[in-house]
């Protein structure tokens, strides 16, 4: 085979590799929808972030408007400090509120951002004041169990025979 022909086949081979990589990046991964350009950061304090992870989406009305960039613990208040990279062009009022939500029953956790009614917008490095923690299934169940146990206890125990500490 002449070397011209060899070069042609090698070119085809490398081209095929390029096509394969482009296919993987654009069709299998999310590069095509990767128009993400962070413009400003916000932070929010949560009592409990549950299973929130770095790079989790931040959604408002279901639309992705940013991503979680870091999660740290504030050692003074023992609250989780979540920093958020917001996408360009999405400004939110000063009294917006952030919730940690779960997509589906067993899905990933994300931050839901709900716009408030304030005239001024959150500035760069601003702090979201109103937050709601993640719902932890175990504490929900234990709360429910305590509630029912208490109800049953107050119904069945006769007055005077109560073993609950009197207040």
């Amino acid at each position, binding site marked *: 085979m002449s070397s011209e022909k060899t070069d042609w*086949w090698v070119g085809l081979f490398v081209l095929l590799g390029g096509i*394969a990589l482009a296919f993987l990046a654009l069709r299998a991964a*999310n590069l095509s929808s990767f128009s993400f350009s962070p413009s400003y950061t916000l932070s929010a304090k949560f009592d409990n972030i549950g299973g929130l992870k770095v790079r989790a989406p931040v959604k408002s009305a279901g639309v992705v408007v940013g991503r979680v960039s870091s999660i740290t613990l504030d050692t003074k208040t023992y609250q989780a400090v979540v920093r958020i990279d917001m996408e360009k062009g999405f400004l939110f009022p000063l009294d917006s509120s952030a919730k940690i939500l779960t997509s589906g029953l067993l899905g990933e956790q994300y931050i839901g951002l709900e716009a408030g009614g304030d005239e001024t917008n959150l500035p760069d490095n601003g702090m979201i004041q109103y937050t709601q923690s993640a719902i932890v299934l175990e504490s929900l169940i234990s709360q429910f169990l305590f509630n029912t146990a208490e109800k049953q206890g107050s119904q069945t125990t006769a007055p005077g025979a109560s073993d609950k500490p009197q207040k």
Partner: protein
Amino acid sequence: MSLNTSLTSVGRGIRIRVSGLGTFARFFWLLLRRSGIVFSRPRLVSQQIHFIGNYSLLIIAVSGLFVGFVLGLQGYYTLNRYGSEEALGLLVALSLTRELGPVVTALLFAGRAGTSLTAEIGLMKAGEQLAAMEVMAVDPVRRVLAPRFWGGVIAMPILAAVFSMVGILGGWVVGVLMIGIDTGAFWSQMQSGVDVWKDIMNGVIKSVVFGVAVTLIALYEGWQCRPTPEGVARATTRTVVAGSLAVLGLDFLLTALMFSN
């Protein structure tokens, strides 16, 4: 007395292993230093890419297709129990780009291209062609080994990318066309779960590392083999064994480094 001899044999075994490792490292360094020919005569490299890459393409593509088919069937069987068949695309894409693409390609590459490199170099050595080149003041490391090395290193990631692509298409054929998963859900689940840098780029890095390891082992075994028919046969066997083990061991190391957090 027998304690002494067994101690001696253990010591000799360790010394031979260690000095083999040292020779291997020096061989790698020698190869890198003589790699200037890649730029001065790139046609030598492209000939090797043609020999190593193009001729391996068919077996890589067919294996990828069948691995994709099997992943589609087996993944569906498991995911169906949890009622999340739509995640099949994600499962196929992640397992291919992160693990199976680079690893299976490297194993096939060791068998398909590595053996032929070892046999070629070994026979050149047995036929005293390498010695003849040295007599003619042509450096065989520069002229023979370096183009083969870089040809293998360049061809391997391309083959792995083709493997992953064909595998994903195979999973799509089984999942969407045969089983009847919704095609939109198949792709959107995949796109939401596969990250370009974390999954695909790490897969490419893996395949480059495997390409270096397999090609280097193949060339080293050919270079070091005893110049007899039996020596070449043994060296070819060792290429496959050592190459496959190196790929699997490196894969564990790289996975632990890349995906541990």
